[in-house]
Structures are given as C-alpha cells and as structure tokens.
C-alpha cells in the first residue's frame, strides 16, 4: 500500500470515529433531555396538585365559616317545625283529656281508678292523703273501696286514706301524700303528660311503626 493510501484510510478512520463520538454525545443529550422534561412534568403535576389542594383548603375554611351559620339557622328552623308538629299533638291530647275529664266518661273513670291504684302502690306509708279535684271526688268515693281492696291484696295490708282537695290548675288525676309528709307521688294527668312530652318523639315513632 502506498503512503498516500495509508493517509487516506487513516483520515477516514479518524473522521468516522469523530462522527460516531459526536453521534453518541447527541444521543446522550437527547436521553438527558427526555429525563429532564419527564421529571419536570411529574414535578409540575405534583406541585400543581399540592397548590390546588392548599388553595381549595383555604377557600373551604373560609366558606365553612360563612355557611356554618346558615346550617345552624336551617337546623333551628327544622327543629321549630318539628316542635310545632309535636306541640300540636300535645295540644290535641290535652284537649281530648280535658274533654274526658269534664265529661267524666267511662274511660276517664277507669283511668282515674288506675292512677289512684298506681299512686297508692308507689308509697310505702299506709296512712295517706289523696288529693283529688273537687269535681272528681264524688266518683273517687264510689270507686275507692274497690281500689283499696286491690291495693290491700297487692300490699298485704290495709291503708288509711283521706281525700282532700287538689288545688291548682290541674286537668285531673291524683297526688298521694303520706300523712307524715315524707312520701309524695304525683299521678296527675298533667305530670303524666309532662313525662310523655319528654319522650314524645320516641313514643310517636313507635306508634307509627307499630302498623
């Protein structure tokens, strides 16, 4: 081989090697570019998500304060409406019972008998005063012997009972008080209505569900 040809071959080899090296450098740079962009996109997505979450949180907190009052008002309104419904029930109940009490019908008399019996069974003393509305005293005198007999059987002893006027704005029922004043059992219709009032929602729902 001539020296000229050798130089030619070497020159080509040198250029080829340089071009390959350059190609490799560019390829590496391209890969690095891809990684940079990919990482940036991921990071951008994460930062955006974080920023949106932060801004949303701040706005929600601000709104929460504003809307909390509205929620309270709505719930208050709801409770008022609900109370109105139950108050109407109580009003009608009171009217029904007042009517029975005034008419002193069979149901009322039966009820009065039960209320007296229950009250007597709930005091330990055997010497008691029955406070009864004046209008009911005649009936009570009629039904009392029968009630006393029932109580005597349950308690196993006799009771000494005195009837007195129940004063105050009561619809009816009875208050039993031991003569020594130590025991007191309020079984007036009014106090029983009060007890019902406390559990009215539960009672009404149980009646509705009992189809």
């Amino acid at each position, binding site marked *: 081989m001539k020296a000229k040809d050798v130089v030619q071959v070497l020159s080509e080899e040198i250029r080829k090697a340089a071009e390959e090296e*350059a190609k490799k450098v560019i390829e590496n740079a391209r890969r690095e570019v891809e990684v940079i962009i990919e990482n940036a996109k991921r990071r951008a997505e994460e930062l955006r998500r974080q920023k949106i979450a932060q801004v949303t949180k701040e706005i929600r907190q601000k709104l929460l304060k504003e809307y909390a009052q509205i929620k309270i008002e709505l719930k208050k309104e709801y409770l008022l409406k609900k109370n109105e419904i139950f108050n109407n029930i109580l009003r009608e109940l009171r009217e029904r019972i007042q009517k029975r009490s005034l008419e002193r019908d069979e149901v009322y008399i*039966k009820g009065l008998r039960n209320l007296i019996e229950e009250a007597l069974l709930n005091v330990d003393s055997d010497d008691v005063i029955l406070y009864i509305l004046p209008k009911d005293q005649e009936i009570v005198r009629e039904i009392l012997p029968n009630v006393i007999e029932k109580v005597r059987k349950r308690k196993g002893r006799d009771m000494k009972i005195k009837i007195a006027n129940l004063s105050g704005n009561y619809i009816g029922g009875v208050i039993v008080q031991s003569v020594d004043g130590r025991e007191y059992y309020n079984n007036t219709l009014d106090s029983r209505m009060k007890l019902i009032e406390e559990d009215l929602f539960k009672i009404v729902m149980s009646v509705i569900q009992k189809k």
Partner: protein
Amino acid sequence: MEEIDFLRLLEEERKAEEIVRRAEKEARRMIDSAKEMARRIIEEALKINEEDIAKEEERRARAEIAKLRDELLREVEFLRKMIEENKQKILEHLEKMVLGLGD
C-alpha cells in the same frame, strides 16, 4: 519509499476534534433548552385560577346547603304526613298512657 503526510493526518485530527466539540456544544444547548422548558412547565403548572376554584367551592357549598335544606324539609314533611295519617292512633295511645290505661 514514499513518506506519510503527517500534516494531513494532524489536520484530520483537528477536524475530528472540531466535530466532537460541535456535538458537545449542541448537546449542552439541548440540555440547557430542556432545563428552560422544564422551568416553564413548572411555572405554567403553578398558574392556577383561584377564582375558578373559589367559584367551584362556593357552588359546592351552596349545593350542600340546598341539599341539607331539602333533606330537612323532606324530613319535616314526612313526619307531618306520618303523624297526620296516624293521628288518631297516636292520640289514643298517648291518652291511654296519660290515663294509665296500658302501655
């Protein structure tokens, strides 16, 4: 014997170095440009419209209030209806309780 032209070979070496140097320069430019693009990608991503978010959250809060109002109204109406339909039964039951006639 013919002599090898070393000067030409040196010239070829110089040209080769130039090719690699240019490639390296181009690679640096590509990377710098990618870094700049990355910076812009992040910058763009962080440009969020707070007003839109506020509007959406406000809409959501209003919807929640409306839903609560509907629920409470429905509940009251349901209660009213149930009580109205069962009123006699309820009153009789309560009356019995007050009068000590069972329950």
